């Protein structure tokens, strides 16, 4: 912890007024930045509480004259996303079915891979790791068409397992990176000692490394969950009727080509679709920083 708020080099009289002024300045600055970050959320929230009439006539950035939750209700269970007008609700479950297994599998694989790369340094491990890391950088638009072909050949095109598969594959780079950077900080002697004691690969992983991994698991889960939940490109390309995730439904609500735009419903739907990730950040944000602290510095 770097506590520089009380520099001990100053004389007392200076620090009394200076400190308070500095403190104030600090809070004002932090507050201003908070406004910058909150502004879009404010616009979305206020718009979602207005009536369409008020949006048409009034300023777009102002508090609602009359607060109404109708738009939220419509977005959740009444907005049309095609010929069905059941809002986001039916699609939410698809997203859960996709995100939860994909996050779990890619995290587990990342942990195993990271464990191997960081602790069992065989010849070529570095090259393998960097080749995998490079996978993080491939633009997803590039992989759509060949991936579609392969999914078709594997017989999982348009299915939820297919989507899980795609998300796991393109999550591997980052999850391996996270765990590798974390496990690299654990002394290799630990593994060596365990092997001398006769413990096998999985035994060491399971009883020694995994219990130490909570912070980095949190980081990886947050990262992966955010990526997968918010994904639109894979969701729209590799789904079919009945397996479309919530981002596709949101897009269907928001993107009307030649119809009347209901901005209040759009905004409410947008916030609802983002709630799970928001919640994850709010609840687990603290562990996020802790996990990064543990994992990133020696990377």
């Amino acid at each position, binding site marked *: 912890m770097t506590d520089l708020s009380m520099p001990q080099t100053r004389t007392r009289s200076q620090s009394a007024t200076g400190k308070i002024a500095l403190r104030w300045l600090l*809070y004002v600055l932090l507050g201003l930045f908070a406004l910058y970050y909150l*502004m879009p959320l404010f616009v979305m929230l206020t718009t979602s509480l207005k009536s369409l009439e008020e949006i048409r006539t009034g300023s777009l950035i102002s508090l609602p004259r009359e607060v109404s939750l109708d738009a939220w209700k419509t977005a959740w269970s009444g907005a049309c996303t095609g010929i069905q007008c059941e809002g986001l609700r039916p699609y939410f479950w698809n997203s859960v079915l996709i995100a939860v297994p994909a996050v779990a599998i890619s995290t587990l694989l990342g942990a195993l891979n990271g464990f191997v790369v960081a602790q069992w340094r065989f010849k070529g491990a570095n090259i393998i790791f*960097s080749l995998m890391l*490079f996978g993080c950088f*491939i633009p997803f638009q*590039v992989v759509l068409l060949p991936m579609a072909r392969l999914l078709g050949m594997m017989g999982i095109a348009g299915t939820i397992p297919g989507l899980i598969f795609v998300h796991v594959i393109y999550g591997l*780079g980052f999850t391996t990176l996270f765990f590798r950077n974390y496990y690299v900080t654990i002394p290799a002697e630990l593994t060596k000692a365990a092997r001398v004691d006769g413990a096998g690969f999985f035994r060491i992983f399971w009883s020694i490394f995994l219990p130490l991994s909570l912070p980095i698991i949190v980081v990886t889960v947050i990262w992966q969950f955010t990526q997968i939940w*918010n994904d639109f490109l894979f969701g729209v390309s590799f789904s079919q009727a009945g397996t479309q995730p919530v981002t596709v439904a949101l897009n269907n609500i928001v993107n009307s080509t030649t119809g009347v735009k209901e901005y209040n419903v759009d905004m409410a739907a*947008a916030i609802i679709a983002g709630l799970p990730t928001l919640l994850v950040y709010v609840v687990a944000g603290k562990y996020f*920083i802790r996990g990064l602290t543990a994992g990133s510095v020696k990377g």
Partner: protein
Amino acid sequence: MSEWLENHLPKVVLAPSFIAVLIFVYGFIGWTAWVSLTRSKLLPKYEIKGFIQYDRLFDSPRWDTAINNLYVFGALFIVIAMVLGLLLAILLDQKIRVEGAIRTIYLYPMALSMIVTGTAWKWILNPGLGIEAMVQGWGFPNFKFDWLVNPDYAIYTIVIAAIWQSSGFVMALFLAGLRSVDGEIIKAAQVDGIPTWRIYTAIIIPSMAPIFLSAFIVLAHLAIKSFDLVIALTGGGPGYATDLPATYMYAMAFSRGDIGQAAASAMIMMLVVFAIVVPYLYSELRAKND
């Protein structure tokens, strides 16, 4: 047999992931390279026709704009997001009372996809609806903030929104770095009477070098992949003034049925990625071998 397995188990564990990456990353890059040499239109064709797609690409004024925008956008976005992230992390590290809440506020944009926040940003930045109208309404009729609708400045609004989305994450990285700097060294420096700013510039920041690299990589990858952002905020406009390589490629591949052209632009993008990532990997691996 079981001894062999025991010895090779780590490789066996790693193998499926590695093979998957070989196929689904490098195989697909190879596929794209192949298609970029064909005249594929609506669907991929595999008959090689030479470098015509690259000729077309370099003849296209729109691609010029897209590549220039990538440089401008990428440089500004990476530098500002890093500086801002570091600044916020230092400010937040001063034993702030409501740190948890403020941190969450800075971090939440990363949780929302740009499909969601794009419309809000569009309104805020629109001169007739957003900040300009608001400030003018406060009694400053000469206030101007019309970057969004100005072809020469619109790319900077993309930078503003991109920084909004990612700087909180960078802040988290740096905050984590600050928290793991050895407190004893700092205390010693304070006792020695070294001024605060010197402690930061001479001790703390240099010790966070790996984080700068991680942040750079995360930001570079976001900059190159930036897509939703542009689509939601400007749709590439005014004109095509805010087009980026990713949006160019998508437009060619999916709205214009010009897959060969899209593959060529993808290959150039991959080259840019390669030029950025390989030096990083090199330094990363060298550091590890020390």
